[in-house]
């Protein structure tokens, strides 16, 4: 597969198989989907479109084939766009992304003609871009993380309280070691683990992005900074800790998961409650700043 174009087509085919077909299937059955809200599915469809657009602007995907894909799936993209406009969710996406949507779905310009600062990037930036996509696709198609993300970001307060009530009941009433208790504890903690691992990997990836392989030289440029920023923006809606509601819900979920572990903690319940839980929450809280949460010092009021 020596030709660049063949390589680009191959990249696109993988993207369609690894991410888009799952998003598309869920979105196509959005009215019947009992797991995910239409708001979540619409944002997921648009996120896929942003990756497609970024892939074209960076020459990772071929423009003609990416256009063809967009034409073929245009009803899904348009439906998602209209839904987030109707529900006033457009603010979930950054201004550059909003401009891309406005331009691409207005019909006024040629498809993928708005670069929004991402074009003519050095070819070496395609390597971290491919790694980001692999990581992001895995997160996007995981049912556990999809469900919790949907709840964190889109559920109404009564709906969120219903989700948490069940877990709180287990924490307060179920016998530690019982099937109900273990199931709830493991479900919550495996979800937390997946999210925290993803946030860690993503942070490491962004840190590694600017480092040249020869450590004496940094390859930090305005181009890579723009690319990094775009990558962050595309995914930001999922764990949007800029929003106080999402921020508070995630910490509530994390605290409860840790409380469930405290019941059988080998360290002892007091040690778990007074030292381990606060340390874990604090460390996760630091990771959350990469996703828009205010710096820890600001939250605790330190000067």
């Amino acid at each position, binding site marked *: 597969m020596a030709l660049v174009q063949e390589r680009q087509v191959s990249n696109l085919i993988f993207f369609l198989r690894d991410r888009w077909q799952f998003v598309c299937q869920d979105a196509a059955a959005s009215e019947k989907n009992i797991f995910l809200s239409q708001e979540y599915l619409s944002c997921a469809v648009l996120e896929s479109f942003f990756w497609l657009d970024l892939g074209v602007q960076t020459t990772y995907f071929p423009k003609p084939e990416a256009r063809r894909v967009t034409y073929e799936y245009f009803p899904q993209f348009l439906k998602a766009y209209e839904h987030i406009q109707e529900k006033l969710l457009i603010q979930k996406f950054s201004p550059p992304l909003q401009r891309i949507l406005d331009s691409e779905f207005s019909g006024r310009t040629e498809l993928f003609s708005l670069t929004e600062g991402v074009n003519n990037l050095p070819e070496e930036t395609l*390597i971290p871009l491919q790694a980001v996509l692999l990581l992001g696709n895995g997160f996007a198609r995981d049912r556990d993380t999809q469900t919790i993300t949907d709840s964190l970001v889109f559920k109404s307060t009564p709906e969120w309280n219903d989700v948490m009530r069940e877990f709180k009941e287990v924490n307060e009433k179920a016998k530690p070691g019982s099937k109900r208790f273990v199931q709830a504890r493991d479900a919550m903690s495996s979800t937390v683990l997946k999210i925290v*691992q993803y946030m860690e990997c993503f942070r490491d990836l962004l840190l590694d992005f600017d480092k040249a392989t020869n450590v004496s030289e940094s390859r930090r440029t305005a181009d890579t900074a723009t690319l990094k920023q775009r990558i962050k923006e595309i995914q930001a809606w999922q764990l949007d800790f800029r929003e106080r509601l999402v921020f508070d819900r995630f910490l509530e979920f994390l605290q409860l998961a840790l409380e469930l572990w405290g019941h059988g903690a080998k*360290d002892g319940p007091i040690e778990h409650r007074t030292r381990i839980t606060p340390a874990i929450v604090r460390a996760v809280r630091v990771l959350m700043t990469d996703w828009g949460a205010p710096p820890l010092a600001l939250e605790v009021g330190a000067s």
Partner: protein
Amino acid sequence: MNLVHFPASISGPEGTYALFTEKPEVAVVFVHGFLGDPRKTWYNFQGLVDELQASYHVWGRSDLFFYSYPSRGQIKPLAEQFREFLDQTFPRHGRNQQFYPPPQRPQGYALPSGRMMTVPTKQSSPYKLLILVGHSTGAVIIREAILQEIRPLTAEQINNATGNNAFIINALLRFFAPAHRGAMCSGLIGALLHLSVSEWLLALMLYSNPLFVSLQKGSPVLEDIKKETEELQDKFPNISALKAISLFGAKDSIVYIGKYKADVDCPTEPNQTHTSICKPSKDYFRPLEFVIDGISARTASL
């Protein structure tokens, strides 16, 4: 420094994928541990194999397969499923039953209109070498799979293996923090607070995961695998798939550091933990070197 590998979906358990290269000579199969993941566990092999190809050119001639499996069930059936994956992934052709890259490379996608998006298939050569890379319990699954491969064979078949058997029993084994000498499930989380937060959470979960707990030091499953492997190591000292090289982090708090009798000893990595040991970065190249260490000796053209 350009992209050398291109990603592809391959058949196998949900989440399994591959990174292919133009003219592969080596197949490297990665098997994650319990509560691991085929993307995050090995991060960032996926990018650095291309970015650092000038220094580690073997990676430029290697196809990478990231195997996925659910973190439930016992070692034996998980190993059976893994062998099934190996059989499906590497089709055999030709008089010598050589192992070729899977037919999924390159692949296609059908658009709603019925139009097929494809890239042309190229003639490929058989692989010269298989490397099985396991992390934590992934290493135990690989060890059990090797035993399952060897058990039905006679001594003569093992020594003169061809086709399917030859490819697998002549594989190289590279393990990161293998659980083959047992899992620690009695540790205190409070003692881990200097590590990364995902390491604490993983420890919290693994310390009470029934399957992981069943792999505590002295477990019958581990004892049987060790005993049988060491006996075979004595009988067949030239079979590479019976001897592993393992790399541990000095700060591992999930598994016991140790090897089997004829395994190759390797110094621990000073600042690495159970999960960071297999994650190369631009400040930590060792995992990239470790997997392909000694390959030139095995395959002259590489």
